[in-house]
């Protein structure tokens, strides 16, 4: 394009044969995007539209469902299942906080202290993914089993008295309580917290720590004023990667919880697969999605990390 403008007026115009390759060159990025766009259309946009239409249908399994723009389904869904919604947010929130508390020190150690062990520790963080999600969650059933070593240990230390008093365990049981579900969620999503945190911490220029020390910041102040603020992008993406899937999760509540710990994911699953009330299930899915979107938007606004990256 610039070649044309730089050509002196008397020079012959660019040969027409040169044009097709040039045009193709300009379109290349779009061709490369095509598979991704198609993927999104087929596996994201279409199902969304389908779900949206399902959520406003009425009818029954026998007679078939028809779109009647019946928005009351949404209201009924929220009115019937708001405790499960709140529980989802609470459990996912608790798991996210626990992941952050456990994951940050670990990510910090990997990024700054692990030295030549760094890659090994990173592999260990990801290692659980080599087994299936279900098996890992079932393993926790064994770990937290009644009168198993963990529960007896906690019981003899009177930890269970405290947690029971807090209402997150029941009597001398850990399994089938909120604590078990939150433990499962924390365990299953911990790597999603550690990896972004690690990436973010690892990118921090070590000289900034030296500069802070040189400017009279004690090690902890250096962490508070330099390291932590600079790791905010990792904190934000880590919490999102943990919170979003955790709030929609139903496997942990199903395997480690009881009917008292049902999360909204369990409700949706039941509605879809057992009760076969498709409109309610679809409406619940949309409410959950909107809720998560609202929480996430608020969170990103608050943390103000847009210009940190």
């Amino acid at each position, binding site marked *: 394009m610039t070649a044309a403008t730089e050509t002196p007026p008397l020079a012959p115009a660019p040969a027409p044969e040169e044009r097709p390759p040039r045009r193709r060159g300009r379109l290349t990025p779009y061709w490369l995007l095509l598979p991704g766009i198609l993927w999104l259309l087929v596996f994201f946009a279409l199902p969304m539209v389908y779900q949206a239409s399902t959520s406003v249908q009425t009818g029954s399994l026998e007679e078939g469902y028809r779109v009647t723009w019946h928005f009351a389904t949404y209201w009924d869904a929220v009115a019937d299942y708001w405790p499960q919604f709140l529980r989802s947010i609470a459990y996912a929130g608790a798991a996210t906080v626990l992941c952050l508390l456990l994951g940050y020190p670990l990510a910090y150690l990997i990024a700054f202290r692990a030295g030549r062990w760094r890659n090994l520790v990173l592999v260990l963080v990801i290692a659980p993914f080599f087994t299936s999600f279900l098996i890992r969650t079932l393993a926790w059933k064994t770990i937290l089993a009644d009168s198993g070593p963990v529960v007896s240990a906690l019981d003899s230390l009177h930890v269970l008295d405290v947690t029971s008093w807090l209402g997150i365990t029941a009597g001398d049981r850990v399994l089938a309580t909120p604590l078990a579900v939150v433990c499962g969620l924390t365990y299953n999503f911990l790597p999603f917290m550690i990896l972004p945190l690690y990436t973010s911490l690892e990118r921090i220029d070590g000289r900034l720590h030296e500069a802070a020390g040189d*400017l009279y910041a004690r090690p902890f102040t250096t962490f508070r004023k330099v390291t932590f603020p600079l790791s905010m992008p990792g904190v934000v993406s880590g919490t999102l990667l943990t919170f979003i899937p955790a709030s929609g999760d139903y496997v942990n509540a199903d395997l480690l919880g009881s009917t008292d710990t049902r999360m909204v994911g369990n409700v949706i699953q039941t509605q879809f697969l057992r009760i076969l009330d498709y409109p309610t299930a679809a409406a619940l899915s949309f409410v959950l999605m909107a809720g998560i979107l609202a929480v996430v938007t608020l969170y990103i606004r608050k943390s103000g990390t847009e210009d940190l990256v």
Partner: protein
Amino acid sequence: MITVTTKNGAEAGGDVRLSGISKTYGSFTAVRPLDLTVPQGSFFALLGASGCGKTTTLRMIAGLEVPSSGTVSLGEQDVTNLPAYRRPVNTVFQSYALFPHLDIFENVAFGLRRRGIKQVKKQVGEMLDLVQLGEQARKRPHQLSGGQQQRVAVARALINTPRVLLLDEPLGALDLKLRRQMQLELKRIQTEVGITFIHVTHDQEEAMTMADTVAVMNAGRVEQLGSPADLYENPRTTFVANFLGTSNLIEAEVDSRSGDEIVLRAGGGKLVLPGARCSAPTTTGGKVLVGVRPEKISLTHADEAGGIPEGRNRITGTIADSSFTGVSTQYVVDSPVCPDFEVYAQNIDRDARLVPGAEVVLHWNPAHTFGLGADQDIDAGVETVDEEAAR
């Protein structure tokens, strides 16, 4: 005007004293046991090629590196075991290391806030004015140019009025013109605030322009220490002679000694060297290296050799190459005693016959000759093209 008080409220005072300080990493010795005193209020440069230990020395003063042996004192206080955050010393880092998440104002205020000073606005404002960045206070570091970032780094360190300001190749990332400006700027600031500056650089011109005292470092030890003019005129080792500017070094044999003058034989001719300017022992028949700076030499065409006054050192040769640089012409002369004799001639009255291939006589005042011990590598400190490119 900035008033100088240290952070402890104590009298600003005292020299920086390094005694027997060394640093080893495993089997590698970065700094050999070193004694150095930097007088209070001076602009001191540590000059050397990359890997000579100058930055390690600086980091040991800053407290960012723990010495393997020896002590660091500021005035009467032994600070060897104090961590960086408790030393009244600040550093301007090579890459500036500005905090990317803080704006310029907060970057500069960082040190003050860490010391619990709440009212920083006035001080930060004054400091930003000193480095002419008052307008940029609310910008982030990445929005500034390299030169401006450099000035922020200086302001951020200076605002704490440290006993010593350490500068680790602070101008390395700037282009030549800006570097010149910043050299003068730093010198101006140093004169204005009167704080001791210790400046690490590999650029000999930078060191000579800015510093009152230069320590030339090589392979973990200080080769020579002195004022820029002293180092330039009286190098004591071939490394200093070659690293600081250019020197022509000739291997010569001691012929005789008369009074204060040493007469030497080199090739077929005789050279005279003032005894006071020879750092090596001179016994008759022994070898010494005779040095002379390229700009001290006059170049005369062989046809007019008769007109050269008596008593000057002379060497004959053939011009191998000449390059015109505007102010001067730089000749490379092939002579029997030295294959690449460099001569810089001012372009006052140019002799048109002085072209490559011409027979010439090089002559200079014997007082400009210096002598070095012949037991050293004659090419030590000569910067090769590869080293330059590696930067």
